[in-house]
């Protein structure tokens, strides 16, 4: 009787693992035409380049489409507005942005407000000045460093 339970439990775990891996593989390989209407609507800025994205990139974008309905209208508008630029960033830039976003989230409210203000100031600098500051940055990577 006890051995049967162990076998039963192992079978359940195995089935779940198999289903999860199948679901992951299928989702990451979906073409633009295979996406649902809702997914296409959210990821519309990426329509032209979707089929050229790598499986793990598609998975990240599908995560965005999954969480999109959970947001209010203002945040949804921000996601749609920024999605196109986001998809054009290099993998390094995206990974760097994720880390910085996590650090930003952990900051107290007044520090967040201060950084928002600083970003506005930075945006007012001439593009040549911003390019010089970017060039001063010690580590600049390309896609090739990550692929």
């Amino acid at each position, binding site marked *: 009787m006890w051995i049967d339970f162990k076998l039963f439990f192992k079978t359940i775990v195995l089935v779940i693992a198999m289903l999860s891996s199948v679901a992951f593989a299928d989702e990451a390989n979906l073409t633009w035409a295979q996406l649902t209407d809702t997914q296409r609507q959210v990821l519309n800025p990426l329509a032209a380049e979707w089929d050229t994205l790598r499986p793990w990139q598609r998975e990240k974008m599908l995560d965005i489409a999954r969480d999109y309905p959970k947001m209010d209208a203002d945040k949804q508008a921000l996601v749609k507005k920024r999605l196109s630029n986001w998809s054009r960033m290099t993998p390094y830039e995206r990974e760097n942005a994720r880390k910085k976003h996590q650090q930003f989230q952990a900051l107290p409210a007044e520090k967040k407000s201060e950084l928002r203000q600083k970003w506005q100031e*930075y945006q007012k600098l001439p593009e040549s000045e911003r390019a010089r500051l970017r060039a001063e940055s010690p580590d600049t990577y390309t896609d090739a460093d990550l692929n």
Partner: protein
Amino acid sequence: MLNNQNNHTQNNLVDSVQLAETQLAQNMIALLEERAQHLTLSEVQRLSTARNLAINKMTATQTATIGIHRNGNALQWFGHHRLASATLVIGLVVISLFSVQQLSMTANLEASDAFLLASDLPPEAYADKGFDTWLDSK
């Protein structure tokens, strides 16, 4: 009257038999004790070996019995309470699956880029290394 005589005779007979048995036992004890005083060395050794063998055998049997009983208790419980044990196992499986799902959902929620895109700052602010350099210089 006749019955009383028969009973009396039967009682006398029982007493006589018991007396004879007692006498026989006493004779046997006397003989054994007398003989025990004159045992040879090999007889003493054989008796000692036989005694040790008997004790070892008895000890081993008792230990094995206790072991089975102790180990058997936990398994016997599951055997006797099949419905309860089935419920317990299924409950553990359901709780495990629920916990894994919740953890997975939480991890996805935190890791999703959607929240970064909807953040107070645009993604460019997080990715722009020039902004970092400019902040450091201030």
